[in-house]
């Protein structure tokens, strides 16, 4: 049985990618298991400057999922290069996916240009879809023109494949994906979290301080599958599919919808061994559904 896939020209031993924001910079999970078993992982969303993010509380539980309003807390790109990447090097020998966010096109360009020189990085995942920051993040991912502008600008300063991570909080995901492809994107990643909220009955106020946040977890899987399915029909570049993935069966389902690789997010926060368990379970599930090569099933539901 063969679990190998190729994402934008880079081979991965399996399609499993812990999603950005649920896996830090990897080394904390490396204390629990050898993270080299992963296909790769997408590191914590990095911006030009250091950020604390939004006020707390910034977590709320939901049925079959959770809301976060962290707001891109990260140490800033210089610190990531100086401190986080060297620490990661001691426990991860595969190419890592660099998740990048910004508040202007210039910030995306600045951060990507700096990271492009780092040999540990295999791909860029350009996040135009964070629902938790104003005047940036998601606002770039909700119009085809803005998403294309970021994509084209980042492509100009990078040599590595650029995968654009899209927001599901839009009316027409296909037009945005196509605009990114036309602007030179090497891949599309979807979906980021759905904008949601919870209200506390005792205080009669929203649970998270930022009022709204990104909803993730198994509850969003049908939305993610639908969007991956639609985008697969519309673009030629590979898709990284994610949203509510927590089992090997989910991985197969997402690949049938059209994903070449699959991100696992919220599941990591409930079970730190979630990705390890999925990877170890994949051969069993492949056998059950008579899958010899995982690559054979990409887009198989179409």
């Amino acid at each position: 049985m063969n679990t190998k896939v190729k994402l934008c020209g880079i081979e991965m031993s399996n399609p499993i990618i812990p999603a950005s924001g649920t896996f830090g910079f990897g080394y904390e999970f490396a204390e629990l298991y050898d993270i080299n078993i992963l296909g790769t992982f997408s590191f914590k969303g990095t911006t030009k400057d250091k950020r604390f993010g939004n006020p707390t509380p910034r977590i709320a539980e939901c049925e079959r999922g959770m809301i976060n309003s962290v707001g891109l807390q990260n140490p800033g790109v210089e610190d990531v290069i100086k401190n986080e990447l060297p620490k990661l090097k001691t426990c991860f020998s595969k190419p890592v996916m660099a998740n990048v966010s910004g508040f202007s096109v210039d910030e995306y360009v600045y951060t990507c240009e700096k990271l492009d020189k780092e040999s540990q990085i295999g791909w860029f995942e350009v996040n135009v879809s964070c629902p938790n920051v104003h005047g940036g993040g998601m606002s770039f991912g909700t119009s085809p023109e803005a998403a294309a502008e970021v994509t084209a600008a980042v492509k100009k300063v990078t040599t590595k494949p650029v995968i654009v991570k899209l927001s599901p909080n839009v009316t027409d995901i296909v037009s945005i994906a196509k605009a990114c492809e036309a602007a030179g994107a090497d891949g599309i990643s979807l979906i980021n979290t759905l904008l949601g909220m919870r209200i506390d009955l005792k205080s009669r106020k929203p649970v998270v301080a930022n009022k709204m946040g990104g909803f993730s977890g198994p509850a969003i899987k049908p939305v993610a599958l639908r969007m991956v399915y639609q985008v697969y029909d519309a673009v030629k570049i590979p898709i990284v599919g994610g949203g509510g993935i927590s089992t090997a069966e989910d991985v197969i389902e997402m690949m049938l919808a059209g994903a070449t690789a699959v991100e696992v997010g919220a599941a990591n926060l409930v079970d730190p061994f979630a990705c390890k368990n999925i990877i170890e379970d994949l051969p069993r599930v492949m056998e059950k559904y008579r899958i010899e090569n995982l690559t054979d099933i990409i887009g198989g539901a179409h």
Partner: protein
Amino acid sequence: MKDVNLKVISNKQIAKNTYESVLEGDVSHITAPGQFVNIKLEGKFLRRPISICAVEDNRLTLIYKVVGAGTEQMAEAAAGTVWQTLTGLGNGYDLTKSGDKPLLIGGGAGVPPMFELCKRLVKEGKAPVVILGFNTKDEVFYENEFKALGADVVVCTADGSYGTQGFVTTPMETVDYTYFYTCGPEPMLKAVFKASKTSGQLSFEERMGCGFGACMGCSCKTITGYKRICKEGPVMEKEEILWEK
């Protein structure tokens, strides 16, 4: 940190809305008082972080207040129920700084972590003084358990229905101590911080996602930088605390 299955041995109400669960299993990864565990409950997406009250061999005692659907489910768990639990989370209290006569101040649901701390300090030959604060008489628990450890115990209630009337800061004024340790609601922590005459350690609470440092959900700002309550905390040194809210 270790993910283990813990079996509920007993589960009983010990005060108003307050329950004590004794669990059995591998608790070897719990290294310090003030650490917490994170419990997976049937039908709940996120785990429930609960502070450690006592740990002995393969037994773990938790005391918690029923505040929502998760803790309600815990309180109703029958003996024999198994909880998948991440153990040994957070930094816990540093006992090396206590001096000979440390002061332990617990408020409400912040009382439990003081128990294992007190137990260990007594074992080290220290003479801890314990102040336990509650809203009212119905909520008082563990007074005798602390006394049985050999500690000096002062109980106070906000409404004066039991023990000394007032907040924990009132008895603090008349006690001599070498260092302090505290856990409780944030307004209490702030008051203790202001009233304290020595250095000390305070344990904080926040809504958590993962409980082991991955999601950045529970971050706070300190004088020495951003910290995750679940990973670099929940215990902070008095000198590093920044009061924001």
